[in-house]
């Protein structure tokens, strides 16, 4: 009864706070759409300056690059310096020479890809491998690859902030003290918060996931229900962590200070960036990051189509995270009331 009343109260407060509601539901969609437009395309083809190349090579290059013909090396170099070109390809003393602009690795890669495609064309047909994909598909954009992690990240980030601030505000406005002057148990408080925020966290997770998959067309082969499950667990972790850390903050501003300490490192370790090159002991830090497990599971489901069995370990870890944070929350409330 108490948990239900607390859940109802949180829902009512939330629904009447239109701006926060918008932050929870509209902001992630907005950012996701931005990310989609930035990373969703395969990028514009590289621009390569050709100096004295035979026609066959130029037309071969044109399959995957914009080719501009130049009369002399110096002219082409001029434009390369002015960043109008990504690379210059020339025949110098009979051998092809490629000069890359080089300030943007992704552009350089695109140039190298175009040039290597050219080399493949000239090789004998018999040696051409047949290319197929175990997971994903040809022309999968980087949005498809790190999109699943972004979905998890948004759920985590916004719920962490909102729950942290909401819990803190209860403390600073005295309503927590007032609430604890009633016979409610500490675990009922935490449970009520879990349920109240859980409702919105789940709705948010569903909205983000559906938007990404059905509107933005993010690559997805697995079950949407599993995505929702993982997202829910991730947001519950964020919720319990946020409320727990709010016990160590004295103001909303201090909650914001947790963002660079708690949220940003998680983003780094979540799988948005490859971590293989990192020193092994530092790499172990990933095991402490809830977002790593969430991102791993979401990727597994969306890209590799994994079923429950494939992500059970991630799910188990997230459950353990949520439960232990929740338990710590119950303990931290002792600071407010001894029993």
């Amino acid at each position: 009864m108490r948990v239900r009343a607390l859940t109802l109260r949180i829902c009512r407060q939330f629904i009447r706070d239109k701006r926060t509601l918008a932050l929870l539901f509209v902001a992630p969609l907005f950012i996701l759409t931005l990310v989609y437009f930035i990373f969703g395309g395969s990028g514009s083809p590289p621009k390569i300056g050709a100096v004295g190349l035979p026609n066959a090579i130029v037309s071969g290059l044109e399959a995957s690059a914009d080719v501009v013909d130049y009369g002399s090396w110096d002219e082409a170099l001029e434009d390369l310096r002015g960043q109008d070109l990504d690379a210059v390809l020339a025949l110098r003393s009979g051998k092809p020479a490629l000069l890359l602009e080089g300030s943007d690795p992704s552009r350089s890669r695109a140039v190298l890809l175009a040039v290597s495609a050219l080399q493949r064309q000239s090789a004998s047909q018999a040696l051409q491998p047949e290319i197929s994909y175990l997971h994903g598909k040809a022309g999968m954009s980087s949005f498809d690859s790190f999109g699943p992690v972004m979905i998890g990240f948004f759920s985590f980030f916004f719920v962490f902030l909102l729950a942290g601030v909401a819990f803190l505000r209860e403390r600073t406005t005295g309503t927590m003290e007032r609430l604890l002057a009633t016979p409610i148990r500490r675990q009922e408080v935490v449970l009520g918060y879990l349920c109240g925020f859980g409702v919105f966290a789940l709705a948010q997770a569903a909205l983000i996931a559906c938007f990404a998959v059905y509107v933005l067309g993010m690559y997805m082969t697995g079950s949407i229900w599993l995505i929702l499950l993982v997202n829910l667990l991730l947001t519950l972790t964020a919720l319990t962590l946020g409320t727990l850390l709010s016990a160590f903050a004295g103001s909303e501003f201090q909650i914001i200070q947790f963002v660079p300490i708690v949220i940003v490192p998680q983003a780094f370790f979540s799988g948005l960036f490859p971590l293989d090159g990192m020193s092994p002991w530092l790499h172990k830090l990933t095991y402490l990051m809830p977002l790593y497990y969430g991102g791993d599971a979401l990727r597994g489901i969306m890209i590799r189509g994994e079923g429950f069995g494939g992500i059970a370990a991630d799910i188990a870890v997230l459950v353990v995270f949520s439960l232990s944070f929740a338990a710590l929350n119950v303990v931290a409330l002792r600071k407010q009331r001894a029993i």
Partner: protein
Amino acid sequence: MTRIVNSGMGDGGGRMSDAGEPAIDLERVGRSFDGRSILKDVNLRIGRGELFGLLGPSGSGKSTLIKLIAGIDKPEGGRIRVLGRQVPSLALLSNIGYMAQSDALYGELSAKENLQFFGAMFKLPGARLAERLEAALSTVGLSSDAGKPVARFSGGMKRRLSLAIALLHEPELLILDEPTVGIDPVLRVSIWSSLLALRERGTTILLTTHVMDEADRCDRIGLIREGTLTAVGSPAELKAESGASTIEEAFIRLGGEKR
């Protein structure tokens, strides 16, 4: 002094009618914040059905003492027993109605929703809740504003709603921290008559106040100064003891000199 406790209300955990013990029994209670001693060695007994007023200058430790009794805060030393039970105790909290000095209300919710929420915390069943809700709202004169969001309430309206919440579950012990601050004289009279009526029905009331005519209406008052109870007695006793004609004078005379 002990009054007969009105039992048999059958609410929540049931009335704790161990009428033999005083409603509040403090023994050598102390509390300090950051190494600064705020309450020192407070001994106090308040009988069942008594209306007890706590008076003292600002910062003297009234709210601190009240929170200790309400079981929200923990003393560093000493023993607190309330309604025959050791504090803190969850079961005890169902028999206490607490009103904090600063209003702690949910601004997004209406007055009625605030009351419903706290009613649920005390596990009041639906029919009783509806009936108590009406009664509490009319006691504080908020019946016509029940549907308004609390964020749009005036200061006095919030104060009254806080009082209504404390009264909602008909607790055996009412602990009110400056209940009438910011409430207009007409309403104050009616709230006081409600408090007196509650006392007649056996409710023990502990309140703090800065208003001398309110202190005059208490059965007994305690003067607190810099964390020490300097005098306890009925208004008449305190006036006689200090040779003052008004409680205000007694307050000023007894406040500092003793000890």
